[in-house]
């Protein structure tokens, strides 16, 4: 059993690693987008899926990470990838600042506040807040990322950067899911009252999940800025937040494979339907409704977790 999943992972890795060699540049770029949205989805999944907080303003944190990288890089010429932790820090701090007073609000209120925050951030960026965001035109001339002096430029090169980042994300999140922190989140999502009764500080864990998710989105923002070399407020519209939210819910909130599949479907599939151009979004909307009606938990819903207590050896032997 264990072996089969191991082979599956190995096969998946080989296919992914070989993909840029087979596909043309356009499709590699589509896969790059899939990868980035997968990471964004996973970071949002921590907030929506694990902590159960409706966040429809995730693009705000993504934007802050991107702008942090863009501003510091274009003004002080600090290499973009060095700014990864800083992007995470600013996005995380911002999330902490806004989430602290509202974390206790019930689901849909939080949802509407996050929408509001997303819009405020976008409007602030357009209005050239503090005179550093470049207004509606945004910031251009961001440097390409470098790894040991090797400049990442072509989509094929970005592909490896992004998917490596995605793999690291999946690995860390899987560890997190089974940690004390992850178990606490799982508990409070299943039954908040009971969790609180068992001594879990629910507000603290929710806030932590929110901040970590936001910080992670900030790092994706950094990579986005490096990939595009131009960023403008348009890239961080409400629509982006909806896309991230939808891919989490459609794929299966709380489940890592689900979110990955969601990213593939939501970002990848529309590319196949480019022919329909205009009708694409309408079809997308219908699909969202249909999906919720016929498969409420998403395509690959999170499986209930089973934990085995370590049994004392004597008890095992005593079994008939």
């Amino acid at each position: 059993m264990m072996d089969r999943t191991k082979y599956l992972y190995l096969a998946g890795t080989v296919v992914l690693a070989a993909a840029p060699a087979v596909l043309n540049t356009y499709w590699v770029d589509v896969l790059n987008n899939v990868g980035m949205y997968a990471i964004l989805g996973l970071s949002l999944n921590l907030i929506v899926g694990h902590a159960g907080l409706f966040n429809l303003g995730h693009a705000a944190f993504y934007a802050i990470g991107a702008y942090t990288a863009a501003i510091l890089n274009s003004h002080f010429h600090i290499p973009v990838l060095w700014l990864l932790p800083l992007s995470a820090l600013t996005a995380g701090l911002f999330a902490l600042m806004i989430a602290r007073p509202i974390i206790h609000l019930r689901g849909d209120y939080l949802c509407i506040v996050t929408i509001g925050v997303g819009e405020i951030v976008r409007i602030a960026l357009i209005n050239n807040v503090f005179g550093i965001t470049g207004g509606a035109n945004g910031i251009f001339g961001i440097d390409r990322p470098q790894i040991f002096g090797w400049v990442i430029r072509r989509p094929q090169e970005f592909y490896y950067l992004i998917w490596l980042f995605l793999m690291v994300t999946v690995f860390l999140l899987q560890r997190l899911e089974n940690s004390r922190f992850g178990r606490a989140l799982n508990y409070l999502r299943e039954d908040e009252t009971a969790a609180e009764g068992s001594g879990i500080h629910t507000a603290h864990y929710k806030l932590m999940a929110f901040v970590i998710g936001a910080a992670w989105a900030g790092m994706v923002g950094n990579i986005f800025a490096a990939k595009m070399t131009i960023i403008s407020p348009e890239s961080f519209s409400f629509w982006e937040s909806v896309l991230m939210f939808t891919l989490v819910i459609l794929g299966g909130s709380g489940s890592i494979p689900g979110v990955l599949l969601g990213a593939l479907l939501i970002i990848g599939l529309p590319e196949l339907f480019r022919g329909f151009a205009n009708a694409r979004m309408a079809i997308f909307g219908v699909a969202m409704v249909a999906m919720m009606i016929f498969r409420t938990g998403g395509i690959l819903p999170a499986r209930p977790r089973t934990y085995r207590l370590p049994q004392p050896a004597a008890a095992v032997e005593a079994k008939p």
Partner: protein
Amino acid sequence: MEQFFQQLTNGLAVGGIYALIALGYTMVYGVLKLINFAHGDLFTIGAYLGLTLLTSLSLTDRLGPFWGVVALAAMAMGLVALVGALLERVAYRPLRESPRLSAVVSALGASIFLSNAVMLMYGARFHVYPQDLLPKITLDLFGLQLPLVRVLILAASLVMMTALYLFIQKTRIGTAIRAAAIDQGAARLMGIDVDRVILLVFLIGPALGGVAGVMVGIYYGQINFTMGWTYGLKAFTAAILGGIGNIPGAMVGGLLLGVIEAMGAAYISIAWKDAIAFCILIAILIVRPTGLLGERVAEKV
């Protein structure tokens, strides 16, 4: 003084429109505890249907400007109400027992579908309402100029809000709606057909939203398929400002938001106009989550 007066009346007119849309949100939220994200798009549909009716039936030529516009508004209300009922049947009823997150996603999907359906049918460009719809009369109030359109829009929204308030407070059906909003299970036990109440809410709310769409068309002269999103969000803010689930709250919240926004745009900065509404929203939710008139308590955990 002049500017203040103009901004005040303008804010009240826009606030009346916000209030009409906010009523749809607040009524649906009251009964179903669902943020009907597609409500803003019903408003857009109202604006577009109004335009189509206007150009195809030439109502104002036959009935004169005043009754023509009234007939137009009534027809738009009826049609959008049907769309609203259909939306409830297709996108929300199957999800009534599901987790709330699913219903929210379904609402988002419906919103995306509706706005894009409008785009497919009418095209992505701005559409223009005929400018000679209502006679361009300016009232003179102690030396202050007041366009007639502004007065009519505010008056019409106040009339509709009063009618709705009386309907909810004084009639049997209105009582049933209030009962279903307080406790659906208990209402059912008292012999109230909750399904019908929900259907009714999805007829009244969209009807008011639809007529608000026509008003925006007349007031601003141009409409676009994405406008439902902005207006919807503002109106939802208004509903929260007044206390969601609370019908008079939505009215007060709408008017207040309209005035605050107009003043903010005039005296603070027009570029930040859209952000003002959201800042208020966040401040309200932090300081007073129940809204100004709200009885419903945002769960504190």
